[in-house]
């Protein structure tokens, strides 16, 4: 095999530095190399998951594709780096990835202490509990004395500790490194309860032997706003990430889809005109071309399309929009206007 990758590349790396992001802005850097390096999960159905051909799909993946479409007009100008929960922030900080779109919860300490910026929320999640139906449990408050399976190294581990302590319930925590292991252990009956983000519960339930035997309890014990993350100190790139997400949301609100975007270009609605670049120069303001949003919608689609294709009711995950509906449909999704 490639026996001497090490000495070869080590020499190169030591001498000239493998890839350098220092000096140039992220946008210049991305344009120079011709693609966006996007950090994703190691496999979470619906959010970022590789299929048997190795193509990445999911809600988080679509966001990276949308950014690539905005920058290059080509949704495939993106490369994915699967990252574990442990590595994700280091990878972003060190410049290994340009954007981290890996179902990452927006918390204050992450936003302020790690040199990161959260560019918005592309999925409002919350931590939930899944149990076997035959336990006869209807509320998380009945879970006293239960053994709980979860992932280690995430906020879920802390939330569950807080919740059981606050309600004065004894419990037993079994915390695994990888989601697959949690599912396997829960399915084998090691634990009474499986807890993670509610979206994750729906995704992982598919992997159980008899998904119908399990139910998700109504309690949501935490706020988990998941969103894309970029490095602090590069406002231009931060804006691109932020407005890519906003463009997808605005497109849904204005009824622009990948199918009708060409017709919509001729629309009389000034909001649509501004968004699609027919009026004003909003693209140039963030360092892109004026048809940036058109490219996003044309190549990736609006938020609704992405949601329905990856996690929506017609997918195996079958998650309804719920709080992730637009603000005018009873949800939390609210994008500032483009004007």
């Amino acid at each position, binding site marked *: 095999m490639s026996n001497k990758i090490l000495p070869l590349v080590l020499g190169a790396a030591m001498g000239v530095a493998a890839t350098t992001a220092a000096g140039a802005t992220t946008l210049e850097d991305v344009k120079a190399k011709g693609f966006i390096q996007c950090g994703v999960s190691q496999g979470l159905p619906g959010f970022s998951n590789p299929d048997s051909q190795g193509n990445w799909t999911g809600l988080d993946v679509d966001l990276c594709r949308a950014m690539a479409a905005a920058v290059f007009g080509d949704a495939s100008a993106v490369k994915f780096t699967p990252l574990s*929960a*442990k590595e994700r*922030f*280091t990878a972003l*900080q060190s410049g290994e990835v340009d954007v981290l779109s890996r179902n990452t919860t927006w918390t204050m300490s992450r936003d*302020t*202490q*790690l*040199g990161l910026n959260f560019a918005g929320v592309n999925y409002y999640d919350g931590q939930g509990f899944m149990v076997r139906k*035959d*336990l*006869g*449990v209807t509320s998380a408050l*009945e*879970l006293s*004395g*239960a*053994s709980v399976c979860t992932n*280690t*190294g*995430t906020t879920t*581990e*802390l939330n*569950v*500790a*807080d919740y*059981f*302590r606050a309600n004065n319930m*004894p*419990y*037993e*925590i*079994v*915390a*695994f*490194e990888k989601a697959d*292991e949690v599912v*396997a*252990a829960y399915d*084998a*009956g*090691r634990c*009474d309860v499986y807890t993670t983000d509610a979206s994750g519960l729906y995704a992982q339930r598919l992997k159980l032997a008899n998904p119908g035997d399990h139910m998700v309890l109504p309690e949501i014990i935490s706020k988990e706003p998941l969103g894309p993350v970029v490095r602090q100190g590069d406002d231009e790139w931060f804006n691109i990430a932020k407005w890519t997400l906003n463009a997808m949301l605005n497109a849904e609100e204005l009824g622009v889809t990948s199918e009708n975007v060409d017709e919509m270009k001729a629309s009389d609605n000034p909001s649509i005109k501004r968004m699609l670049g027919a009026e004003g120069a909003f693209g140039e303001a963030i360092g892109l071309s004026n048809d940036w949003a058109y490219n996003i919608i044309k190549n990736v689609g609006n938020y609704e399309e992405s949601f329905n294709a990856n996690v929506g009711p017609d997918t195996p995950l079958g998650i309804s929009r719920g709080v992730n509906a637009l603000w005018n449909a009873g949800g939390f999704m609210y994008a500032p206007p483009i004007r």
Partner: protein
Amino acid sequence: MSVMEQDSAGAPARASLLNDPKARGLFYQLVLIVALVTLGYVIVTNTIANLERQNIASGWGFLENTAGFGIIQSLFPYSETSSYGTALLVGLFNTILVAVVGIFFATIFGFVIGIARLSNNWVINRLAYCYVELVRNVPLLLQIFFWYFAVLRAVPGKREKWSLFDTFHLNIGGMRLPKPIWETGSHMIGIALIVAIIASVVVSNWARKRQEATGQQFPMFWTAVGLIVGLPFIAYLVMGMPMYWEHPNFVETGPILRRGFELNVGINVIPEFLALTAALAIYTAAFIAEIVRAGIQAVSHGQTEAAHALGLRNGPTLRLVVIPQAMRVIIPPLTSQYLNLTKNSSLAVAIAFPDLVSVGGTVLNQTGQAIEIIGIWMAVYLSLSLLTSAFMNWYNQRMALVER
């Protein structure tokens, strides 16, 4: 050729500095030091700059912050309100526990399989051979997954159990054992145990001296057993039986969630621990078996024959002649297997057993103190390695052939 270029031994002073081995040696070492110092300097300055940029406070202060996460198994009281330092200590003790229990079983399995490899019985011999080859050639991590995920499914669920003598119970929640509860006065039992151990050592020294002087043997083994079992038992009776067993409580009625074993009653050996120890013991045993086989084969058959000629029966021959000699061959590689087992126990992280690496990983995630945590890992494993090898070296020296 080069012979001609060599300076004659009589005139070393004329050798150029370049050819003087001492000067050259000094030069090489100097270069090495300079290179190492430069490398160290670059790394330290880069790290400091990076940490500052990322707003990560370095130092050990975080050890006193509240951990906030639960740990399933702890050898001493731990709760979510304990500090990160306590959490890491829990991990350290769990690592040591796995290592000690794993080494114990690996040694027993290893010796049994090693001897089975030398058996004349074809079936036993082949079985041992297949065991060794199969286990040695499959990655340990895969075996841990096997024991945890495949075997786990085979044991009864949480609301059922397998019981042995109504004392040991097994289900998917782990193995439940009765727990000794010590009441006041029970410290005498501990004291009696210590006295018994000291007495056994004294008696064994005396017995050995007597045997060397007079040739008379003394039933040392049974004396020691008698002392170590008897004395604490007498103390137990004298103090008015200050200890009782708390049996695990299996609830069979009420809501389904409440059924099964009650939390925190009796001892619960969690399945993660069982799987990890089983995998480690079985994996390492395969290597130990080969070491034992090689060790026994290294003892020349003449030794056995000579022992028989002296009138020793099979048992004493094995015990007094073959094994002591084989041990000399066995101990050094055995030591490195023990070290391997200890280091491999870090794979606990894959099946949620809270060992040092697993707990440390969680702390690392919560605090971002990568350097400190990895430093703790390295320091702990290095000292465990050094301690184990120091102990085994001491034992090896004791066992070594005294040359005359």
